[in-house]
């Protein structure tokens, strides 16, 4: 390559590269930059670098609370019953066993009398009050009526007259 050629190539290169430094933005760039800054940002919203630690600590705290609750909860007897049922029941080959996790209703306490005594009706209550507070004659009449009711019922012979 001759010196002229070299100079020409250098000149071409320098001219092309100089265009990078000649680049000018549209007029009013500074104004547009400042406008965007004032409309799109405030310096107060920048978060510090340690800001991520706050949600992380909250998550850890929540996980700790959940774990503590889980540990504190006693085992329910129903769970044990289900486990026993599983062991005793013969395994089914085809269909997988579906364990019913619905909590059984708590059994009611055993009553001393069966059927359990129902509350008194209005009539029974009135009778009780009468018996408690009634005069002696009334009580005797009642006892008499009860004795009579205990006797066998006698039915008089009915005589049927033939039709004329």
């Amino acid at each position, binding site marked *: *390559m001759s010196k002229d*050629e*070299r100079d*020409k*190539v*250098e000149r*071409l*290169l320098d*001219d*092309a*590269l*100089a*265009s*990078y*430094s000649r*680049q*000018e*933005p*549209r007029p009013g*760039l*500074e104004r*547009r*930059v*400042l406008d*965007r*800054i004032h409309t*799109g*940002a405030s*310096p107060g*919203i*920048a978060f510090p670098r340690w800001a991520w630690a706050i949600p992380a600590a909250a998550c850890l705290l929540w996980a700790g609370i959940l774990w503590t609750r889980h540990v504190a909860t006693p085992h329910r007897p129903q769970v044990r019953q289900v486990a026993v049922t599983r062991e005793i029941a013969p395994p089914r080959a085809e269909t997988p066993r579906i364990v019913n996790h619905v909590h059984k209703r708590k059994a009611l306490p055993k009553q001393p009398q069966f059927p359990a005594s129902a509350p008194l009706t209005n009539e029974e209550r009135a009778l009780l009050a009468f018996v408690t507070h009634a005069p002696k004659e009334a009580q005797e009449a009642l006892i008499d009526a009860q004795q009579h009711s205990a006797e066998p019922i006698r039915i008089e012979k009915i005589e049927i007259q033939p039709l004329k």
Partner: protein
Amino acid sequence: MARREEAAAREARFAALVERHSRFVYRVAYAVVRNPHDSEDVVQEAFLKLYRTGAWEGMRDEKAFLARTAWRIAVDRLPKARNQSLDQPLSPDLQSDDSQSPEDAVVTADWSAAVHRLIDALPEELRQPLALAAVEELNSREIAQVMGIAEGTVRTRIMRARQILKHKLVGLEDRYEQR
């Protein structure tokens, strides 16, 4: 009252910073993205970032800091295909994305366009230091700071880029004379 005055003074200082350096930042951005619209976006984003983080108040070397901020934003905007590394081989003709090849430009005697296309077709690792060196305000040391590489590497890459371009230009000239 004092707090309001302080805020106003701070705003004025930032406005002065924008006034002083926005054109320089624009040229740095242009050296990377080579597009006026994207370059302006880079300038706005760079200043907005500095304002939000408050980093501009602690700057020692304003130019270097701003150039590095703008360069990072601009590089992030480059299409991935463009941002090829030196490990990848150069295409035989150093063709750029434009429809007109350097040879076509030479045929139409548009040497300037041909050189631009050759520059655009360089790998980014060679093209960026070369283009940043063309931005008058930046020397090798500052380019090294901007790109986060050694000053010697900057010089080597600029030299290598120029050698490749000269070699390609001579080849184009020879082909043009043969026609």
